């Protein structure tokens, strides 16, 4: 189990760094969703199922969707996302 926890931790750390240093906002939002999903899996491994359900639905779905809608509003105002 420690191997799974460690690899998920490494994935989350790398994902968080990638969010910081990515040029494209769209890609950063998606990477952020992946970090949330990995943390939900981590909660499952640690037997915190209650937290895992909340993290999967709020962190991975709601937050990502809200960021995307905000990005669309920015694009309505003339913002150009870097590729």
């Amino acid at each position: 189990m420690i191997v799974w926890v460690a690899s998920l931790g490494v994935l989350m750390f790398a994902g968080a760094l990638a969010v910081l240093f990515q040029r494209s906002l769209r890609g950063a939002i998606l990477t952020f969703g992946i970090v949330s999903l990995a943390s939900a899996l981590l909660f499952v491994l640690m037997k915190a199922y209650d937290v895992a359900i909340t993290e999967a639905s709020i962190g991975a779905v709601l937050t990502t969707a809200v960021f995307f809608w905000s990005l669309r509003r920015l694009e309505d105002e003339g913002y150009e996302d870097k590729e």
Partner: protein
Amino acid sequence: MKTRNEILIHLGALLLVAALAVAAGLAVTADEPGLGLLDAGVESRPSARYVFKTVRAAPPEGGAVVEPGGKGYENGAANIVTAVVADYRVLDTLGEVLVLFAAASGVGLLIPIRRRSAGERQASPIVRTAVPLIMFLALITGAYIVLHGHLSPGGGFSGGAVIASAFILRFLAGRRPDPRGKRLLSALESAAGLALLTVGLIGLAVSGTFFAGFMPQGTLGSFASGGILVIVYTLIGIKVAAELSGLSADFVGGK
């Protein structure tokens, strides 16, 4: 090219992460009893009472935990997390619900009404066909999580968020929120909030404590157990689902 401010912000974030890592290391290796995460003195922590007594402790007449079929446990809920969140610490949960309400109304207040832009992209036919099916599954799963919060992992917050994620999927597939549905959502949310406070006031009237349990505990492991827990968490589930769906409808924008 990055500006100097961006580099400073990234540096600050990295420093914060490093400080958190050091603090976590100190917490894990602390020597004082009851402070370190890995030491054996768990019994000395305040949380130990909840961990060891409420659900997993022996019933008043003695003996091991019987599930299902056990009677006379302190709280009657098989899921200890729900027992703490929606019964012992329900006042904190009420505050949490108020925080969520303030956030949702802040979004509704501050966000400008979005004009429909000319080049609105349509979702692909695959997405538009699959979304109703997935939405159906998500709604059923969410309702199950809300209603069985006292028996299995989950509860009002997580189940309500799952129900809201069904509506979010629908919005992501290109459906626009209609004003009648939004009015219905806010009415539902207000009704659930008022009913939640009423449950607390009934407890106050019956036994002199806000949110005191006024219903029988029932049998451990059966659906009708946990006293007011089911009612409280169902109301919270309705409120959270309506709030988060309304928030995403605000973000998507009107017609």
